[in-house]
C-alpha cells in the first residue's frame, strides 16, 4: 500500500477529512482502494434488524450490584489485611532453631590424645605419668558432666513430690554424655590415677 493509498483509505473511512485531489481517478486505477471503498459503503449501509428491547433495569438491581461490590471489597480488604499482619508477625518473630541430635558430645578441654591412651585396658606398653594439671582438669570435667546429667533431679527431689506426675513431664532430657566413648576412656584414665 502506497502513501497515496493510505491517504485515500483515511479519507474513505473518515468522511470529515478533506477528499484528496484525484480521488475518483485513483479509485478507478487501484483495485485495493476500490475494494475498500466498496466495503466502507457496504458497512455504512448495514441496517441491523431491531431486536426486542431488553427489559429496563430496576433501580434496586443497580443498587444491589453496588452493595455486592462493596461487600466483595470489604472481604478482600480484610483478608489482605489479615494476611499482611500474619506475614509481619512471622517476619518479626525470632527464628527458633531445631536442635540437631548429636551422637557423640565433644568433650571440650578433654584429655589430649596422649593422655587418653594412658592406662588403656590391656595396654602392655609402659605409660607415661599424666601430669597433675590434666588430672585436675579431668576431675573438674567429671564433676561438671555428672552434675548436668543427674538422673531426673525433679523426680528424685522430695520438694517436688506435691506436684505428682508433673515433675516427670518437666524433667530434663536424658543425657548420653557419660556413655560416650571419649568420656569413658577419660574416666578410665582418671580412675587409674587415683
Amino acid at each position, binding site marked *: 500500500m502506497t502513501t497515496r493509498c493510505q491517504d485515500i483509505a483515511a479519507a474513505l473511512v473518515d468522511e470529515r477529512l478533506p477528499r484528496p485531489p484525484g480521488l475518483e481517478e485513483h479509485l478507478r486505477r487501484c483495485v485495493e482502494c476500490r475494494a475498500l471503498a466498496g*466495503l466502507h459503503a*457496504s*458497512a455504512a*449501509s448495514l441496517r441491523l434488524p431491531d431486536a426486542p428491547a431488553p427489559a*429496563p433495569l430496576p433501580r434496586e438491581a443497580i*443498587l444491589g450490584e453496588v452493595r455486592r*461490590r462493596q461487600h466483595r471489597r470489604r472481604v478482600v480488604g480484610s483478608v489482605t489485611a489479615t494476611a499482611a499482619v500474619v506475614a509481619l508477625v512471622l517476619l518479626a518473630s525470632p527464628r527458633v532453631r531445631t536442635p540437631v541430635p548429636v551422637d557423640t558430645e565433644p568433650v571440650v578441654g578433654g584429655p589430649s590424645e596422649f593422655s587418653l591412651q594412658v592406662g588403656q585396658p590391656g595396654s602392655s606398653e609402659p605409660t607415661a605419668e599424666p601430669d597433675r594439671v590434666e588430672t585436675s582438669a579431668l576431675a573438674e570435667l567429671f564433676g561438671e558432666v555428672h552434675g548436668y546429667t543427674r538422673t531426673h533431679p525433679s523426680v528424685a527431689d522430695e520438694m517436688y513430690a506435691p506436684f505428682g506426675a508433673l515433675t516427670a513431664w518437666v524433667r530434663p532430657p536424658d543425657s548420653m554424655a557419660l556413655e560416650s566413648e571419649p568420656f569413658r576412656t577419660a574416666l578410665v584414665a582418671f580412675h587409674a590415677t587415683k
Partner: protein
Amino acid sequence: MGAGETSLDFDALVESEQAALLRLARRLVWDGEEARDLVQSALADAYEKRHTLRDSKAGPAWLRRILVSRAIGHLRRRRVWNVVREVLDLGPAAQPSPEERFEGVERWRAFGRALRTLPAQQATAFSLRYLEGLELDDIADAMNIGRGTVRIHLYRALQKLKAADALRGETP
C-alpha cells in the same frame, strides 16, 4: 437512589439514557442477556463515580464511555475464552445469540460470528461507527482514544471482515 441533588440527577440521567445504553450494549456484544448484565455493571460503575460528574450535560456521553469501556473488557475476555475453548477442544463455541437468530438469516449470523472474532477495539469501533452511526469524534471520546486510532481500527476491521467473507461490496 438516595437523598441529595446529585442522586436525583443521577436517577433522571439513568432513566433517560437506559434504553439507549441497552441498545448500544446489544449492538456491541450481540446478546440481549449479556447486554443487560453489561448495562447493570456500567450503571453500578457510574453510581460509584457519580460525584466525579461535574457537568450534567455531559452525562449521556459519560455513561456511554463507561459502558464502552466495560464492553471492550467483556469482548476481550470473551475472545480469550473462545481461543482457550478452541485450543483445549472444550466443544463448540457459544450458540448463536437471539440477535443472531433474530431474522434467521444465515448471512447475519455469519456476520455476527465474524464480528466476534475481531479484536475488542476493532469490533467496538466498527459497531459504534457502522451499526450505531456515531461520528468519529464521538467514537474517540467513547473509547478514550484518538481520532487517528479510530480510523486505523475501522480500516483493519473492514479488512478482516472482508477476509472472513462477512462483508462484501454490497449490503447483506
